[in-house]
């Protein structure tokens, strides 16, 4: 596999030759930050376009077709429309928290986004407790949502935010358990290491039964974690208008919207990294010719193909099932997913101890 680390270390050595190391690292951080935010926006646009097209296909429609070829510029136009709109502040709202909330949500999302290993050597945040950091960073988002609901001075927003708090905090447990199942198999929490260990087969194949169960639990819990259907209770359109972002307008609403779609991509790409090998090509032990051919496809192509496939799976689920009630959501989590996840963790420990995995 091509290692992008060669490029990045070359850039670093060129910069340190010109200036003191502290300044070089500062400049690199700024450049990486800009690249990260650009990628964030581009992925949000791709996600929204994909959502509209896939949703349309599931409903036997065509989706956007007018603006640009196959409607491809439609979402970009929507983004510019959103940017030009007025940001309204509601009277009797808690002004400071009201304006802070969307930035907390986007902060959590960007921090989780930075953990994703896109290709070899293209990891931004990569250290030995990466998985733990990812879980911690992504759960800051619920604070933003709760604050948005609380500060809007609107009962719909508050109900939406409270539901979202109950739902996201519960489902974090299942996400943790299913990731833990794979960590038992890998004995590392560093994302780049997790990908490297899948060189001789992705974990969903290596861990067979417990890995597949963990993958399904992860998909369900991940879908609930990003507040998308069938778990879109926090913004249940028919009951709560738009839930916690009812009172937001303009780009503040846009931040919530963008964060929701990028969170979908983050959840999918973590699923792709942990279960489907991330940027690691499909390797079958023994077939060296086949493995060599697969290696010619660049890592980031593999990564995006897998992540978009998982996104498509989640969209398929979203546009198939009706919304659950809040008690049904909590029943599903506490009476089904958590016990099954715990048993599955035990099963994985047994598999690892007796070396039953491939």
């Amino acid at each position, binding site marked *: 596999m091509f290692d992008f680390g060669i490029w990045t270390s070359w850039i670093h050595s060129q910069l340190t030759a010109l200036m003191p190391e502290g300044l070089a690292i500062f400049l690199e951080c700024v450049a990486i930050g800009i690249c990260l935010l650009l990628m964030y926006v581009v992925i949000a646009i791709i996600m929204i376009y994909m959502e509209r097209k896939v949703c349309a296909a599931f409903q036997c429609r065509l989706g956007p*077709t007018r603006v640009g070829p196959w409607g491809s510029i439609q979402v970009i136009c929507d983004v510019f429309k959103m940017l030009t709109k007025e940001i309204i502040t509601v009277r009797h709202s808690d002004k400071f928290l009201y304006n802070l909330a969307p930035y907390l949500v986007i902060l959590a999302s960007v921090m989780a986004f930075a953990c994703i290993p896109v290709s070899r050597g293209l990891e931004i945040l990569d250290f030995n407790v990466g998985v733990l950091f990812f879980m911690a960073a992504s759960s800051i988002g619920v604070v933003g949502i709760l604050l948005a609901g609380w500060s809007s001075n609107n009962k719909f927003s508050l109900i939406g935010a409270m539901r979202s708090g109950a739902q996201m905090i519960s489902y974090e447990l299942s996400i943790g358990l299913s990731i833990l199942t794979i960590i038992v198999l890998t004995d590392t929490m560093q994302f780049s290491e997790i990908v490297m260990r899948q060189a001789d087969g992705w974990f969903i194949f290596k861990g067979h039964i417990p890995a597949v169960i963990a993958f399904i639990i992860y998909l369900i819990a991940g879908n609930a974690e990003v507040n998308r259907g069938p778990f879109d209770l926090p913004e249940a359109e028919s009951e709560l208008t738009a839930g916690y972002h009812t009172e937001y307008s303009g780009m503040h609403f846009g931040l919530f919207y963008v964060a929701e779609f990028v969170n979908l991509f983050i959840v999918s790409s973590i699923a792709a990294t942990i279960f489907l090998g991330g940027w690691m090509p499909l390797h079958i032990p023994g077939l060296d010719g086949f493995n060599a051919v697969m290696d010619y496809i660049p890592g980031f192509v593999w990564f995006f193909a897998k992540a978009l496939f998982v996104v498509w799976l989640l969209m398929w689920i979203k546009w198939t*099932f009706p919304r659950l009630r809040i008690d049904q959501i909590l029943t599903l989590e506490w009476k089904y997913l958590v016990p099954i996840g715990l048993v599955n963790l035990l099963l994985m420990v047994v598999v690892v101890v007796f070396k039953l995995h491939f």
Partner: protein
Amino acid sequence: MSNYIKGLFHGIGSLLTGMKVTWKEYFTRKITEQYPENRATLKMNERFCGELSLVSGEDGEYKCIACGICQMNCPNNSIRIVSEMTEDPETGKKKKKLVKYEYDLGSCMFCHLCVNSCPHGAIEFTTEFEHAVFTRSKLVKTLNKK
């Protein structure tokens, strides 16, 4: 416990049924019509009500006998029939004959009461739908053009 496991598998089964349905839907031909582009090939449904028209019989004459039932049944008074009495030259019997069948598309609400009440099946709705004109008076149409 057995109920729990049974319920779990039943639930998964019913979810998979739903996913099978949407999977099929994903690959079926999409029904969206891209209207101005496909104007040449556009085919409307038979049941679509565009505008009223008179049906001709086998002899090429309109089937309408100017009885006026459609005019009486029309809730919006969109139909106005002008008729005259003519005498058959051979038998000498008197007969009503249609002079003018006037139909106001602008006030029609496409309720089908006229079509349903016609005893001779002499009127029907066509699927023509491009009705835009610049003045209301152009919407008042005379249907018997022969």
